[in-house]
Structure formats: structure tokens, C-alpha cells
């Protein structure tokens, strides 16, 4: 009996190791293909409209322009006040995949391969991520990232007919239950201090248009200026 049990365990372990050994390169190669495809885009600029849907925030749709230059220069420019989700607007997805990580192939469905990404460095700002990579094209359709401190971000990418794999729309769903605004502070006596957002989820939809891909973008674009416009500059 003991011999049978031991034999079964060995078989299971051998199978697991074999499956892991088989799937690991597949996960890594899928990511490598996606990164290679994104490397084709050395720069781009596009108009973007940002629609914030959070039940306790009323903000009109904001329009602006994004600029990106490889490897890591990013700029968002708009007039007035803007709320931009911390994940999804910039090239953080690609940046994340370039950091040391372990990729585990999970499964696939009709449309996507599903991968888990675990960071291998202590200073990574995320704990775990799930990637949905398109089965036919080298692009990410969806990504779920659990951040170390900022909760969960789910990003869904929609692609158009661009010559490169750049999304024309991105929806970012995130956790807002931890957001607590001291409503009473500005003298609004009607508001109960303990009032929390009614829904635990918020989302931001960004729609891109008027792309200019791989054109020349001067470095000055990525510097702060004094125009009074809203500017978000991300340079690593």
C-alpha cells in the first residue's frame, strides 16, 4: 500500500515538474512576444478623453493629449484639473513586465491565454498580476493587478485598426472602498463624516484618437513648463 502511494506521489510530482517545465517557457515567450511588439512603438502622441465614473465624484469628461517616448518618457497634458488613474494611462504595463518576475501559464479560453505574474524583487509595487494575452495577436487584452498598497486595478484594453498594437480605449476599474474624504471639513453640515462611497468600485475610461506613431517628439515636451496647464510627467 505504502509502495503504491509513494509511486503515485512520484508520478504526480514528475507530471507537475513536466507541466511546469513545459508551460514556463510558453508564458515567458508570450510575454516576450508582447514586449517585442510594444518595442515597435518608439514614440506616439494621441488625443485622449478621460471619463471618470466614481459615484462620489462628479467631474466632466476631460480632454488632453498624451505623449510617449521609449523607453520610459510619458506626458499627459490637459487644461484644468484632471484625475488620471495611477495604472493604465502610461506604459506601466510594459514597464511591469520588464521588471524581474516569474510568469506562470494558467489556462486559455477562446480569446485569451491567461498568465499569472509574480514579482521577483522586493521593491515591486504590485503583489501579483493576471494577464490575458490575445491568442491570435501579440497584445494584452486585460490585466488585473493587485498593488501593494493601492488595492486592485483591472485594466481592459480595446484595439482598433492601428498598424501597431496600441489600445484605442482603456478602461480601468479600481477599488475605492478605502477612499475616505473628510466631507465635513469644509463646513458641509449635511454630510455625515462617516459616509463612505456607496459603491466599492470606480472606473475610468480613456478613449484615444488622432494617433501619431513613431514621429519625432522633442525632449522638451517631457519637461515641466509654466503654461498653467495640467501636466503629468512620468520619467523613470
Amino acid at each position: 500500500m505504502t509502495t503504491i502511494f509513494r509511486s503515485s506521489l512520484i508520478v504526480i510530482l514528475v507530471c507537475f515538474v513536466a507541466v511546469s517545465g513545459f508551460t514556463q517557457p510558453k508564458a515567458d515567450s508570450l510575454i516576450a512576444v508582447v514586449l517585442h511588439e510594444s518595442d515597435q512603438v518608439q514614440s506616439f502622441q494621441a488625443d485622449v478623453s478621460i471619463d471618470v465614473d466614481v459615484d462620489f465624484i462628479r467631474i466632466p469628461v476631460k480632454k488632453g493629449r498624451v505623449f510617449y517616448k521609449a523607453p520610459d518618457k510619458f506626458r499627459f497634458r490637459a487644461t484644468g484639473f484632471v484625475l488620471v488613474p495611477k495604472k493604465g494611462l502610461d506604459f506601466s504595463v510594459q514597464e511591469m513586465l520588464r521588471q524581474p518576475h516569474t510568469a506562470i501559464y494558467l489556462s486559455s479560453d477562446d480569446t485569451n491565454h491567461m498568465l499569472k505574474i509574480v514579482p521577483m524583487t522586493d521593491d515591486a509595487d504590485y503583489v501579483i498580476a493576471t494577464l490575458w494575452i490575445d491568442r491570435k495577436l501579440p497584445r494584452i487584452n486585460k490585466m488585473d493587478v493587485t498593488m501593494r498598497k493601492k488595492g486592485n486595478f483591472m485594466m481592459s484594453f480595446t484595439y482598433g485598426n492601428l498598424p501597431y498594437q496600441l489600445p484605442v480605449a482603456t478602461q480601468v476599474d479600481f477599488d475605492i472602498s478605502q477612499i475616505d474624504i473628510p466631507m465635513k471639513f469644509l463646513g458641509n453640515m449635511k454630510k455625515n463624516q462617516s459616509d463612505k462611497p456607496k459603491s466599492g468600485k470606480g472606473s475610468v475610461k480613456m478613449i484615444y484618437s488622432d494617433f501619431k506613431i513613431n514621429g519625432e517628439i522633442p525632449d522638451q515636451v517631457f519637461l515641466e513648463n509654466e503654461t498653467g496647464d495640467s501636466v503629468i510627467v512620468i520619467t523613470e
Partner: protein
Amino acid sequence: MIHLIQIEFQKLFRRGMTYIGFVAIMLIVLVIQTGMLVEGKKLLDFLIKSLSDVFLLNGNLINNYTVSYIVLNSLWIHIPILVAIVAGDMVSGEAGRGTFRLLLTRPVSRVKLLTAKYIAAQVYTAMLVLFLAFMSLVIGRLFFATGDLFVILDTINIFNQSDVLWRFLAAYGYGMISMWVVSGLAFLFSTQATNSLGPIVGSMSVLILFTIISNFSIGIFDVIKPFLFTTYLNGWQLFFADPVDWNQIYSAVAIMALHISVFYGAALLIFTRKDIQS
């Protein structure tokens, strides 16, 4: 009639207390503007700190519009006091100084005399609100740039700069009507007194009592709240909601207009029947 109103204005602006309201508003607004200039960003960062966990926030929210909104929020409690000081003195002041009997020997009807005083009081109230608007929106522009307005009501409302000015003008207009109610009440009390302290303290007492009732969430008070003018005093905030509840604004303005009419009618009734002894 116009000549009577002009005389009332001359009398009004000869009194030092008339300027107390303007000086007080100027000082308070300047203090708030200076405070916001120095510490405003820190205050706003504290308010929206938790938002920055999820969002990258960008843009200048400490601007002239946001500060003007904070000024409105802070001053709306104090302006009724400044209004009552002058309106409460309009009739009782004459009685106190013993000039009424002499005044009424002139060939002017009591209705005309009281109406001229009433109009002077209400124009003064309007001037006070307009001065507040001037200090906030015009003088504030010397300290701050314009920008999107950030308002915390039941929700966080952020309005485009182009969508803000009409809201302020409407809010000041609404505020003017609500202050006319307070002024009307103080004026009514003024017709019954022979010194100005009584009407000022009386109208402030009513204001405080009604405000407490308006803000108490107790069932018994809920029945009378819709009939109290204090329920509608902070209705100017409705213009900074999204979407604007116009029905609520129309009904609030109608109720306040009714209060103004009743207070004026009662003052007229009392004054025309009053036995002037001094």
C-alpha cells in the same frame, strides 16, 4: 418717492455703523484669501489625500473660484448679523433719536416714509452681498488665478472653469434674496422698538433659534422646517450641485419671497397704526 429714498440713503451713509459691514467683509475675506494663499494647498492635500492613492491628481485647485466658494461658505453665517445691524436700526433709530414726530409733521404719508426706509435697507443689503462678490471674485483675482472649481457637497464636484461664473452669479443672486429675508425681519422688529439694540438682538435670536431647528434631525421639527426661512438660507449651495435641482431652487425662492412680503406687510401694518410718541 425717489427723493425720499435718496434722503434715507444720505442718512444711512452718514452713520458710522453702515460701514461696519463693508469693513468686516473686507477684513474677513482678505484673511481667508491670505490663509488660502499660504496654506491652501496643504488643506486641499489633506482633503483629497486618499484620492491620490488611486489617481494622479493634476491641476490647480486652489484658485480664485475655489477660494470664493470657501469664502461664501464661511461668511454666510456672519452676513445676517451685519445686515441686521443696519436694518434693525432703520426705524427704531429714528424713534431712539426722537426725530420721528418731527419727520412725520412733513407732508409725507407713513406708507411712503416706511417704504423708502425699507428700500434703503434692502438696497444696502444688496450692496453688502455685491461687495462680498467683488471682494471674492475681483480682489481674489489679485491673489489667485482662475481654474476649475472644486466643491465638496454630497459628492465631490469638479466644474470646468467655463461652467463656474454663472453658478457664482446665481449663488450671489440667491444669497441676496435670502439676506433680504433677514433684513426684512430686522426691519419688522425695528418698527416695534424705540432703540436699535432690541431689533438687532431680536432678529439674531430668531435667526439662531430657527437655524437650530432647521438643522436638527428630529421628527417633530421636520414638520415645521419647510416653513422656516432659515431652511433656505444656505440654498445658494444648490447651484454648485450636479445636476442643479431647479425645482428646489424655485420653491426656495418662492418661499423666501413670501417671507419678504409678509415681513414688509406686517411692518407696514404696525407702523401705520403705531402711536408715535417720540
